[in-house]
């Protein structure tokens, strides 16, 4: 039996397509480019996506969609917010999810995950929910995020599971709230993401950052990444 909360998602979940002027996700050339991007991501990183998706019970479609939205499949160096690599994880987020894993998820990390994370960041033993991150630990996490693609995918997947559990309601997990929180940050969004909220309500709520609302359309909109994935893999 699964130890995690079950996810129910509709695809597409909103009758709207992402359009920023330069990119209209319903234009044939953009659809073709986005399909090609997802194929490349799964071809290059499918092994890690399968492994960690299986560990944290997150579907390949969701992981490929997150990587496509976050980084376009480019293993990018840290940006001004220190978001790094394919899943654009920051050292602070890594510290947060590892130090509060059991509290939020309700069960400890599996031996596989714990062993892998300890190997990637040996200071994991010093991570504590009641202590601020030290510069030495931050630097170690930052280096792992930059240089270890598998770690970047594994910890990004762990973050998705952490957020699915953090925002569960009525015994169900909600990927739309996870998308907003992954993008806008857990603490800045948690107060506004209580209960059951539809994707349309989230997209129309201008108190959320424009980027987070666009994120929802890129993933859950018509011809968004999940829509394209399931049209291709029916």
């Amino acid at each position, binding site marked *: 039996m*699964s130890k*995690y909360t*079950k*996810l*129910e*998602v*509709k*695809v*597409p*979940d909103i*009758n*709207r*397509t992402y*359009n*920023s*002027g330069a990119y*209209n996700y*319903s234009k044939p050339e953009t659809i073709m480019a986005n399909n090609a991007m997802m194929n490349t991501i799964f071809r290059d990183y499918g092994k890690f996506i399968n492994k960690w*998706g*299986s560990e944290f*019970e*997150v*579907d*390949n*479609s*969701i992981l490929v969609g997150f990587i496509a939205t976050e980084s376009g499949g480019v293993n990018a160096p840290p940006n001004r917010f220190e978001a790094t690599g394919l899943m654009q994880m920051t050292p602070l987020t890594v510290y947060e999810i590892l130090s509060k894993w059991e509290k939020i998820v309700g069960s400890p990390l599996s031996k596989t995950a714990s062993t892998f994370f300890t190997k990637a960041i040996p200071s994991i033993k010093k991570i504590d929910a009641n202590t601020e991150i030290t510069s030495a630990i931050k630097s170690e996490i930052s280096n792992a995020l930059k240089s270890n693609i598998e770690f970047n995918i594994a910890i990004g997947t762990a973050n998705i599971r952490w957020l*699915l559990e953090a925002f569960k309601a009525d015994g169900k*997990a909600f990927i739309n709230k996870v998308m907003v929180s992954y993008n806008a940050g857990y603490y800045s969004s948690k107060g506004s993401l209580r209960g059951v909220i539809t994707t349309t309500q989230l*997209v129309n709520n*201008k108190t959320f950052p*424009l980027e987070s*609302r*666009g994120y929802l*359309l890129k993933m859950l*909109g*018509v*011809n968004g990444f*999940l829509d394209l994935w*399931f049209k291709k893999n*029916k």
Partner: protein
Amino acid sequence: MDRRKKIFLAIGFVGVAVGGFVLAKFLTRNVRKIRGGTVTLQTFDTPPIEEPLTE
């Protein structure tokens, strides 16, 4: 119970089982099991809104 009644009863049971299976398949025709849950594939009757989002 005579043989004829037993046959009708068996046919009845098989009919209910097949009917139930077909109905369940029909009701979940757009539902796919994914790792960690389910996805319901849906379509809309009208074209999607293409208006860019604003602040």
